[in-house]
């Protein structure tokens, strides 16, 4: 299978840059004294995803580089390594280096081998023990990291802090911030009261003051940033290192001069701020990434092809034209304009439908967008691992919500890697176990019961419950005496820090994947389920709700009711004659369709719908349907038409109904039920 991987590069770059931003802000937020393991986990996960992605796309330089970072982070996470400022600096430098590498790859430029190697060496030195004498030499090139630059040379900071008037309303208190600053070092505060209006105009809830702060002492820039973290967006802030005493005095002079001069003081402070902001662009950038952190962790934006938006705009344009034409007809209406009105209405209908479709289109995309990444992954990994693996993709055209596509790809990468790496055995072992030499991994997506199910199935060795349990006890995740059901035992692999691989490879086995997998899936409101049999294989089934999923449906009439049959499950529709019908045990009806006997399911009987027409098989229609390996003929009154329907959950407010997977809203606003074929067959068997 040949797939143009280039189409996914853009997504990979965007994801990676997001990941890098996460790593950077995470590293910058690390508190040396009290390290939050969750924080390191977050950084680690970002690194892991970048590594995975770059491996998939064949950017080996990036993958190798990230692998080093990951190893370092892994040791920190397990507590095997002290988190030191030096190590964090090296990591930060590496993040910068990675950004450069990715930018270069994106622009299809040459990689800066020298700088990459320098960073690599620094990482290796850090990994192999700090004792090495070259450490400082190697760390120096990483001076691009913001923290490293300031630590020794400077002996103080000049901070111009000019809050916006509504600062106080957001619950921030400058006094508290100054107190915190004073704890860092020797603090001089110069206040500018020029902005204060006369008492009559004064709103006590507004902040009219601005300050110039001089903070002397050996202080980390990041500490100051932390204090101003929350007010970043609500003030004009400049933080400059104090290098010379002279400068210090000038500032005081300026501050005093401003106090003296009653004209436009606020502006002048702003000018100072504007000038200074330019000089320490890098720092403010770093600080702003941190400032964003308290907001929602993942952005809710979706990437839409501009051509889709253009189509939308065109359609809206046409809609407007149709509307104006109709209103013109309406304005001077006479009976001879009926034809014109009719055409207008037909146009309106068509435009509305097209508009609806293209709006839906923006959010919906086939799962193949995710799936088609995997053949390459399987190919590369199988050669790397010396295994023979066949990857099967089933149901690639299942449409899922865009958010699902974006969030499910990382978990799927992990799951497929796990299957390839741990699931499928070596060819020799497979032959010895009496299995075909080539292992099969199946990726399947389908709709079921109001859910989208994505399965990663392998015919490998399956999960070993005993060893899972032993491992968990060893790692201290569970007590020796804990009693677990099979299901709970499998659940263990979702715990953070659980890894069963004997040896760490760069493929998988760090015990980070599965807990991210579950987290991402839960974030989508889904569940993941493991079915496994030792020696036979395992299946990871992801169930996702499909609030926005769309289905191609065939509407059918049974009595007064309208139902929707998923088009994908319809094999054909036939009109039958009495002599085609056979009875089994006098009751069950079957009919013969090309050498196959299929059961007849009378819809009006199992759904207890009164049908005046179709009690006689000759008068209605048989819709031959297939679902999960079951075939049957649905006996209905009539076929109504094909349409795309938006799937609405019936369970959200109501309950599950046997034989019905979900519901949809028809054009006239009424609700129609979408049939669940396997459920119907079960129902008719009762």
């Amino acid at each position, binding site marked *: 299978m040949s797939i143009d991987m280039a189409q996914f590069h853009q997504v990979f770059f965007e994801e990676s840059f997001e990941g890098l931003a996460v790593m950077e802000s995470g590293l910058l937020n690390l508190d040396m004294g009290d390290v939050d393991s969750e924080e390191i986990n977050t950084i680690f996960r970002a690194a892991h995803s970048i590594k995975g992605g770059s491996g998939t796309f064949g950017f080996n330089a990036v993958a190798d580089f990230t692998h080093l970072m990951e190893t370092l982070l892994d040791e920190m996470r397990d507590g095997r390594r002290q988190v030191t400022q030096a190590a964090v600096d090296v990591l930060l430098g590496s993040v910068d280096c990675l950004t450069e590498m990715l930018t270069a790859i994106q622009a299809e430029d040459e990689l800066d081998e020298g700088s990459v190697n320098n960073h690599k060496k620094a990482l290796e030195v850090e990994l192999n023990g700090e004792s090495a004498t070259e450490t400082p030499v190697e760390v120096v090139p990483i001076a691009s990291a913001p923290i490293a630059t300031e630590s020794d040379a400077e002996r103080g900071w000049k901070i111009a802090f000019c809050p916006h008037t509504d600062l106080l309303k957001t619950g921030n208190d400058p006094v508290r911030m100054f107190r915190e600053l004073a704890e860092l070092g020797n603090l001089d505060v110069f206040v500018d009261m020029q902005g204060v209006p006369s008492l009559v105009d004064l709103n006590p809830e507004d902040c009219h003051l601005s300050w110039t702060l001089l903070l002397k002492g050996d202080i980390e820039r990041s500490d100051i940033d932390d204090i101003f973290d929350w007010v970043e967006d609500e003030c004009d802030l400049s933080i400059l290192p104090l290098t010379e005493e002279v400068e210090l005095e000038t500032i005081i002079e300026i501050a005093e001069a401003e106090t003296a001069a009653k004209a436009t003081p606020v502006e002048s402070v702003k000018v100072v701020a504007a000038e200074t902001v330019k000089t320490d662009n890098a720092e403010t950038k770093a600080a702003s990434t941190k400032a964003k952190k308290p907001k929602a962790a993942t952005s809710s934006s979706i990437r839409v092809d501009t051509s889709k938006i253009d189509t939308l705009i065109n359609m809206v344009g046409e809609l407007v034209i149709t509307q104006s034409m109709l209103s013109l007809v309406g304005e001077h209406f006479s009976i001879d304009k009926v034809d014109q009105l009719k055409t207008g209405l037909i146009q309106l209908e068509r435009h509305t439908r097209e508009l609806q479709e293209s709006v839906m289109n923006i959010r919906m995309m086939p799962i193949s967008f995710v799936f088609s990444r995997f053949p390459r992954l399987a190919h590369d990994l199988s050669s790397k691992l010396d295994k023979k693996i066949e990857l099967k993709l089933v149901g690639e055209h299942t449409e899922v919500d865009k958010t699902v596509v974006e969030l499910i790809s990382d978990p799927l990468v992990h799951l497929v890697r796990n299957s390839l790496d741990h699931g499928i055995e070596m060819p020799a072992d497979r032959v010895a176990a009496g299995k075909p030499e080539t292992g099969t991994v199946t990726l399947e997506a389908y709709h079921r019961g109001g859910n989208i199910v994505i399965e990663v199935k392998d015919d490998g060795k399956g999960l070993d419950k005993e060893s899972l349990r032993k491992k968990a006890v060893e790692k201290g995740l569970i007590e020796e005496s804990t009693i677990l059901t099979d299901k709970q035992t499998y659940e263990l692999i979702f715990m953070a820090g659980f890894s069963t691989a004997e040896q760490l490879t760069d493929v998988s086995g760090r015990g980070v994947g599965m807990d991210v997998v579950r987290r991402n899936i839960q974030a989508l409101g889904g569940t993941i389920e493991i079915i496994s049999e030792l020696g036979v294989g395992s299946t990871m089934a992801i169930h996702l709700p499909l609030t926005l999923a769309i289905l191609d449906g065939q509407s059918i009439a049974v009595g007064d009711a309208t139902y929707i049959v998923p088009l994908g499950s319809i094999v054909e529709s036939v009109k039958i004659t009495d002599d085609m019908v056979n009875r089994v045990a006098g009751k069950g009806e079957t009919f013969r369709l090309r050498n196959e006997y299929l059961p007849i399911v009378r819809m009006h009987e199992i759904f*207890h719908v009164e049908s005046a027409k179709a009690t006689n098989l000759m008068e209605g229609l048989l819709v031959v349907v297939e679902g999960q390996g079951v075939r049957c003929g649905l006996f209905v009154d009539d076929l109504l038409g094909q349409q795309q329907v938006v799937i609405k959950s*019936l369970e959200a*407010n*109501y309950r*599950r*109904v046997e034989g019905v997977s979900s519901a949809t*809203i028809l054009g006239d606003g009424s609700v129609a039920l979408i049939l669940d074929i396997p459920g119907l067959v079960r129902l008719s068997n009762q």
Partner: protein
Amino acid sequence: MEQNTSSEEIEAKVPENSVQFLSFTLGDEEYGVTILSVQEIRSWEPVSKIPNVPNYEKGVVNLRGAIVPIIDLRERFNLEHSEYTSLTVVVVLQAVCRGKNRTMGVVVDSVSNVMNIQKENIQSAPDFGTKVSTEFINGIASVDNRMVMLLDVEKLLKLDGLEEGETEEDEE
């Protein structure tokens, strides 16, 4: 929707220790639900029937894009069924069941009014033994010498076999 905003306005004037109820009638009997659980009041409109469910579950309707079940309270309480007319009212109720917000419409004969009931005037439901099921009744209050049965909306929404559905989900 309108009901919501106006109820909030009224609430400002509600004296302490009292609760507001929306009262409606089923035949001769008067029932009340706490007004905070009422989302809106609509007129009866045809529903899409759901196969193989109890008789009182009339079907589902499209409520601004959400699929909402409609329950006939008369039939739910084993009262005589009455024909639906254009005056038949559907009260759309909301409650949180197991962390999920559920919405359901109940068919009643007519909506009477909004009343303030002092908390201390609410008595617990009398025990009729097994003769009369009082499982949905939270309490009884007397308003202008009329007895009003106060319904437990959460139970009302839950007991419609929803639990069944929940456990099935859990098993998966």
